[in-house]
């Protein structure tokens, strides 16, 4: 039986390219005996690997050869431009890599295959504006909007606490460990959800008319994002600080259905201070701003099924002896 082996080589010895580069590759075929080939194909695509379910995309396949191979060595060259697609990313739980895969369709035999990766990096000093036209997105007076739109959501933590509390009570009376456990878990979760839900509502007893602006929302590495935050003090308050934290997180989902598990890894966390501690008298309007620097090597945002690299800005008004006011604004780091 004929033995057919494939190998792929690239023009760059380190397999490293930038967006906009042309990749020159060669598929080498080694055939020991005459064989019919119904199609030698070359497929290029990106694929994730790591903790999350594997996802692939941007698949482009071409046919390099069809016909009969006599024993010998063959080379098939192909070139393509890297126009778009995700950048190569190697994180802790999410990885994105580009691949070339060659496969020969040999009748009545296992199809020989070869696969190789190539790296796609961003082009430094990319052409185009550093700051993109963006809709000014402001969080309006959250004190009214939160209550108006989310009254029904307040029932969820109360329901959890109610049911959990009942189970704890009956479990205690009947010495039922299962009820105690489930009741305890539900109550703890209900308290957690209640705190998360009511935190800003409580904070808004001290601050009102909170306006937040984070723009632009689409940024290149080594650029800046303007943050404006303003509020009116509803009461005399001691302010510890107002801060903006740039957060980068990998999110990977493995399994499916009841076996579905979400993994998270925070790879970047840098707080910045907009306003240091001070005493604010009732009725005073506080406004502060910050030019938030995006790191020059910031990983590009990536969002596909079960694999994400996300960036966001978390804004905090840290009120002494009172729950903090917090909000989160997602941003996109471009390739």
């Amino acid at each position: 039986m004929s033995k057919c082996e494939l190998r792929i080589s690239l023009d760059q010895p380190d397999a490293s390219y930038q967006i906009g580069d042309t990749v020159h590759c060669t598929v080498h075929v080694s055939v020991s005996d005459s064989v019919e080939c119904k199609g030698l194909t070359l497929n290029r695509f990106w694929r994730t690997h790591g903790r999350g379910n594997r996802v692939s995309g941007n698949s482009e396949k071409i046919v390099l050869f069809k016909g009969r191979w006599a024993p010998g060595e063959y080379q098939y060259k192909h070139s393509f431009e890297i126009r778009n697609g995700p950048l190569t990313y190697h994180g802790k739980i999410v990885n994105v890599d580009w691949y070339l895969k060659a496969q020969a369709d040999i009748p009545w035999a296992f199809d020989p295959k070869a696969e190789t990766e190539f790296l796609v990096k961003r082009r430094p000093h990319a052409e185009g504006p550093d700051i993109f036209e963006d809709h000014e997105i402001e969080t309006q007076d959250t004190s009214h909007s939160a209550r108006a739109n989310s009254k029904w959501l307040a029932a969820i933590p109360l329901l959890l606490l109610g049911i959990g509390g009942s189970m704890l009570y009956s479990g205690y009376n009947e010495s039922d460990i299962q009820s105690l456990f489930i009741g305890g878990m539900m109550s703890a979760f209900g308290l957690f959800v209640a705190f998360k839900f009511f935190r800003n509502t409580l904070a808004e007893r001290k601050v009102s008319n909170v306006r937040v602006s984070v723009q632009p929302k689409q940024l290149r590495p080594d650029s800046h994002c303007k943050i404006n935050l303003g509020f009116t003090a509803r009461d005399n308050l001691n302010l510890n600080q107002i801060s903006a934290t740039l957060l980068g997180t990998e999110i990977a989902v493995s399994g499916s259905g009841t076996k579905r598990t979400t993994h998270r890894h925070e790879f970047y966390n840098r707080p910045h201070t907009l306003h240091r501690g001070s005493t604010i008298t009732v009725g005073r309007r506080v406004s502060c701003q910050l030019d938030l620097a995006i790191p020059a090597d910031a990983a590009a945002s990536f969002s596909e099924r079960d694999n994400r690299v996300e960036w966001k800005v978390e804004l905090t008004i840290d009120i002494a002896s009172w729950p903090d006011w917090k909000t989160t604004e997602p941003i996109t780091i471009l390739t």
Partner: protein
Amino acid sequence: MLENNKLPFAHINLRFNPFGELDREDRAKIAVVDVNQAASFLSQHGRAIQFIADHGRGKSTHLIALHQSFPTAPYTQVHEGDKPVFSQQTLHFVDSVECLPYKQRQQLYRAANSLAITTHQDLSHELNKAGYHTLSLPVSLIKSDVLQQVLLRRIELARRNPGKLPSINLAATHKLQRDYGDNIRAIESHLYNVFQSLTEIGNVEV
């Protein structure tokens, strides 16, 4: 974080972390499962095989490996709340059949002449009642050498070039079993973190 300027895991002669998620095709490749007996049993009419174990013990891997012997048979992954419709078939493969309500399981039994399933609970009584001759196969990686083989196959699957690879010896395998029992998923999760930090090829310390 691995460098974006280098091929991933090239420093340890691998293409990816061997203990990350794999697709079904790759899971079949690494399965250390003797399915000959099961395949021979299932090839006859009116047979049912159930792979029984708790979560993370390798039931799905066994089913996927067995499915390689019957590639044209439909394979259904069931999740909680799903209501798949099973067509009349000679053979059905169903993963997590306990997620189906009783009535739907009965519909499956009416549709399948023969059946291979995974389940947390022993369904032999209802399978026998449905007319199947049932073979129950508990799944558990108790043998250290089998567990070691599973782990080494994962590493081999991730091989980049000919030559040496990181290795897990029997002593390390015993330690993993002491720490995690037969929960293969927990073992793989732990090894994912170990391999993420690995800097050189050799015997891996777990």
